[in-house]
């Protein structure tokens, strides 16, 4: 049995213009955190439906993990990613897109994305990202100790 480590509630920001996508992602994040031996299980969720609302929520909440859709109605997710990384360089940002072109992937990495999910969502994709986040967060805790 894995030891649960309670550090503090982590904050997750979900940015997608479609409410159904955000709800689906949140539901599956909660389910995966509960059932897949992940260490960190306490979260607060925040949501945004466009770039301007995402920027405001990010500034107010300073989330640890962000799922950021690349195609937003009022701006590019890549531009938003750059601003997030300026504000909080250690934020773990997962880019989400229906289009995994080389251009999108390279631009995401260059702007500081930690990972990339290609829509449609699958639990395997989300779980892979959560395991990456766990390793990343473990390292951060060690650095900050």
């Amino acid at each position, binding site marked *: 049995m894995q030891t649960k480590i309670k550090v503090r509630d982590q904050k997750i920001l979900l940015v997608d213009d*479609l409410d159904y*996508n955000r*709800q*689906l992602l949140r539901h599956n994040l909660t389910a995966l955190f509960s059932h897949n031996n992940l260490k960190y299980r306490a979260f607060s969720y925040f949501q945004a439906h466009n770039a301007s609302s995402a920027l405001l929520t990010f500034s107010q909440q300073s989330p640890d993990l962000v799922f950021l859709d690349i195609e937003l109605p009022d701006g590019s997710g890549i531009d938003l990613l750059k601003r997030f990384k300026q504000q909080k360089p250690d934020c773990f940002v997962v880019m989400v897109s229906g289009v995994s072109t*080389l251009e999108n992937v390279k631009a995401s990495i260059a702007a500081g994305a930690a*990972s*990339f999910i290609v829509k449609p*969502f*699958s639990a*395997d994709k989300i779980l892979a990202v959560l395991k990456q986040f766990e390793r990343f967060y473990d390292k951060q805790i060690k650095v900050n100790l």
Partner: protein
Amino acid sequence: MNLLFAEDDVLLAQLFQLQAQQSGYAVCWVENGDAAIQQALTYQHDLILMDVQMPILDGISAMQLLRQLGFDRPIVAMSAEEVTETGFDLVLKKPLHWQQVQQQLAQFEEFPSVALQVPAELKEGYICHVEQSLKQLEQLASQGMWSEFAAIVHQFKGSAGSFGLDHISELAHQFQTSWNTLPTEQKLPRATWFLEQCKACKLK
């Protein structure tokens, strides 16, 4: 075990597929590093076999991009030359001999697949959203508002598959691949065909 086989040599790929499938492996074949990245990010494959020299994007760059994105599944290089870059789990020397490849593959494990949970009420809500969007698309088509039309179709492509509406997602994907290069006079018939196909799909 599901293998992703990235190789631009068609004959080699066909031979590998035949041998691997006979031994019980499922093989997805892609011809370049760009396609390998797109497939890898679906997380449907337990292991990637990556040729080093490929068009569009070579195997080393593809591996490096995947690792930068935190991709943690095994990537095996295939090359006649020495491969010194870090990031590969193993290097297989070309020419490949299936029995040797099979012996090496035995050290890797399958990744258990987890099913996406789609609550019934959420799926119902999404289906209503699609039905309303189809009505909206009819209006947009009649007014020739093509950028708005394409934006909604793009949203279908990204979201419909997550809610189990794979047909709608696939139709949206097909629509997108040809739409931008389509002459203006062909946009209405193409849009009408798309809407007819969507309506023919069983949503519930």
